Structure formats: C-alpha cells, structure tokens
C-alpha cells in the first residue's frame, strides 16, 4: 500500500528526534558538571599535598617503622579490591573500562591463590558483579557523580579496619584517572599498604631533608593519627577524579549520540522523501494507465461513448482520481 513506508519513516524520525533532545540535554548537563568536578579536584589538592608533605617529613625523621599501614605483609592471603564506577550508565566505556581493571585485579589475586574481597562503589559496579554471581563484601552507592569527603571517610574506615584486623593483607584500587576532558585513563593502583617511596619522593623534591621538627606528641603518635587521614584523602582524590572522568565520559558519549541522531535523521529524511515521491509516482502511473485503459475501451466500442472519454481526458488528474481508481 503506498504511503505505508512513508508513515513508518515519519514515526521513526519523530522518535529519533526526541531521543536527540534527551542526549543533547545530557551532553550539556555533563559539560557543566565537568567544570564543577574539576574545581573540586583542584580544591582538594592542597590538603592532599600538605598531608603528603607532613608524612614525608615524619618518615624522614625516622618515624613509621612498624606502622601496619606502611609495612607490606610477607604472607598475603586476602586481597581487597575497591572499584570506583558510576551510579548511572550512558557514559560510553567508562564503567566497563574500570570494571575490567577490577576484574583483572581480582583475577590476578585469585590466580596467585589469594582470597579476595570486593568493595563496589557505584551502582553499575554493584549490578555488574552481582549479575555475575560474585560476592560483594561492601557496597557504596548514590554519590559517585559528586562525592563528599564523608563518603571517602566511610569507605576508607571500613577498608582500613579490615586491614588492621588482618582480614585483608593488601588492597588495590581501580578508578579512572582524569587526565583531561578528552582523556580519562582507567587505573589500578596499590591502595594499602602505602608505599613509603611514594611519600619520600614528594618531600625530596620540595625542600630536601630538613627534618628538624619538634613533635607534639612524638612522631610515631602523630604518624599513627595521620596515616588513616592520608588514606582517606587518597581515596577522596580518587573519588573526585572518578567523578570528573564520569562526567567527561558521559559528555563525550552523549555528544556522539547526538551527532549520530542528527546523521540518522538526515538519512531517514532522505529515505522518507524518496518513499513519498515513489508513492506519488506509483499513483500517477496508476491513474495514467487506468485512463489509458478506459481510452482504449472507448476506441473499441465505437463513437457514442468515445466523445465522453475524450472530454474527460482533458480534465486534470485530481478531479479524475476517485473515478479512475474504481476502474479495474
């Protein structure tokens, strides 16, 4: 039936158009959130830098031996993996990339015969691992697009207390590093125990070994209080970077979707126009051949009705349409 294809196409175009509106809105929202997330990353930096410096100074003063958070364990039996994914999808490969990193960490630990514990942050990580029947030891959701320090504190506290109790001997962290708006890199890093070199490095570069500090109370007591804060601040930084990456990934994905929709609409429009023209052409041919058939019938049956048809032929197609359709 002519017009059927045209109608279907028209419906599809409408649906693609409304999808485009949604993806465009999401693109704009994400773009504005990237800026905010980047500002938060920058605002959190002074604290992280200061705390790293203080720990570096303490380490240079000889504190830190025997701190469980700084001492790698010889016999690792249980490895924890924290994965920072997003609560929502529609962010391109963002979630799957970081989850793949976590899978790698879990696979590697299990390959070495260690037990594993999984800390899932973000609803997408949770549903991924739950669907695959993996046991999830702790879940944290609902804040991945704008994490607060309190969120970081809760997760870190949980992880550190398990570590100190001996339930975990090592903890790895899978998150997405925010390099720039265009580049985000999924990363797997050692979370606890902390690597002392990493702390010492920061200190050397800034002001050398001037460890002539007074301590109140002693260096070890301070370090003991400082290290959990440091762990929190590292996790907080990772959460903020992950949030910025999430927004950037979503913006990119939504931009691609919007561009795709524009492209698709163009294509469908062309198809629809062709279909419309086709159906018009078909109709004209039907009319013309119908008229032709009648004409020939008239020629065969002599003059009486011949006049009638020549007269009708002179009228435009439109007024003839209903009649010629009914002719066989």
């Amino acid at each position, binding site marked *: 039936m002519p017009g059927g294809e045209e109608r279907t196409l028209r419906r599809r175009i409408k649906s693609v158009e409304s999808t485009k509106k949604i993806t465009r809105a999401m693109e704009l929202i994400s773009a504005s959130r990237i800026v905010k997330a980047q500002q938060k990353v920058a605002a959190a930096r*002074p604290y992280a830098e*200061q705390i790293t410096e*203080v720990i570096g100074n303490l380490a240079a003063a000889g504190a830190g031996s025997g701190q469980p958070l700084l001492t790698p364990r010889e016999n690792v039996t249980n490895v924890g993996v924290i994965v920072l994914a997003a609560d929502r999808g529609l962010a391109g490969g963002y979630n799957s990339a970081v989850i793949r990193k976590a899978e790698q960490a879990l696979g590697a630990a299990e390959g070495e015969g260690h037990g594993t514990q999984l800390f899932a942050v973000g609803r997408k990580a949770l549903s991924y691992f739950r669907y695959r029947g993996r046991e999830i030891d702790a879940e944290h959701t609902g804040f991945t697009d704008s994490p607060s320090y309190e969120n*970081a*504190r809760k997760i870190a506290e949980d992880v550190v207390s398990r570590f100190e109790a001996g339930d975990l001997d090592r903890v790895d962290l899978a998150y997405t590093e925010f390099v720039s708006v265009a580049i985000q890199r999924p990363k797997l890093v050692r979370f606890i125990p902390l690597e002392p070199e990493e702390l010492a490095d920061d200190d050397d570069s800034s002001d050398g070994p001037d460890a002539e500090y*007074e301590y109140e109370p002693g260096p070890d007591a301070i370090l003991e209080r400082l290290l959990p*804060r440091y762990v929190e601040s590292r996790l907080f930084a990772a959460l903020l970077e992950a949030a910025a990456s999430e927004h950037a990934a979503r913006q990119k994905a939504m931009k691609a979707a919007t561009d795709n929709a524009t492209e698709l609409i163009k294509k469908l429009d062309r198809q629809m126009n062709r279909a419309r023209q086709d159906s018009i052409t078909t109709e004209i041919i039907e009319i013309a051949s119908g008229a032709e058939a009648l004409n020939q019938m008239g020629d065969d049956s002599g003059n009486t009705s011949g006049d009638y048809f020549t007269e009708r032929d002179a009228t435009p197609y439109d007024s003839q349409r209903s009649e010629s359709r009914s002719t066989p």
Partner: protein
Amino acid sequence: MTLNVEVVSPERVQYSGEARVVICRTTEGELAFLTDHAPLIGALGIGEVRIGQESGEDEVAAVHGGFVEVRNNKVVILSDVAELKSQIDVNRAQEAKKRAQSALQADPDDEDAKAALRRAEVRLEVSSD
C-alpha cells in the same frame, strides 16, 4: 614579619591570610605560635583555633582533630572538620545536636550520630565566644 596561615580541609582551603599569632589546642595542651617559631608538627585535639590577624580582629575556626605544621613562618592547619566561626550556622548546629542526641538515645552505638554530636558541640563552642 607575620605568619602565613592556612586552614585546609579536604574539600577546600578554608582560610588563608597573615597573622601575628596562632593559638591552637594540640592533644598535649594549648600552643601559641609567634613569628620565627621552631619547625613543629603537632596533632590537634577537639577545639578551636584562634588566629590573631594583623587587623587586631581574631578569626576563630572550629577544628575537630587534625594536624598543625609550622615552618618558616608558615602555619598550616589540616583538619577534616574545619569551619570558620563566620561560616557556622548556630541554629543548624543546635538542631544537629538535638537530632544527634535523640538518635543516640534510640541507639547508643550509632557512630554517625556520635560524630554528628561531636561536630555540633565544637561548632557551638566556637560560635559562642
């Protein structure tokens, strides 16, 4: 010659400015820093940090735990709960205190409520003087 003072919380730099004197409470007792103080790293207790500014006006911050580092006339206060007096909403703190207290009555082991109560008390203490 003045001290360069910064109060830094994990989410942002709360205060940054010049001061004559900084008084804070470490776990061992109160300490005051003037210019040319010897380098020091201290652990802070619950309480206030008083910054004697050049102008003669004091800035007070509520600090719960954290650390202070003094070096080369620079005082850095690091705290996961640091709020300036001017930022504290007394009504909100009082409400938070009440809420935390009633939550604790219902469940004395509620860690969140305990932390909330602690924070509210420090806030009220700072804003009351």
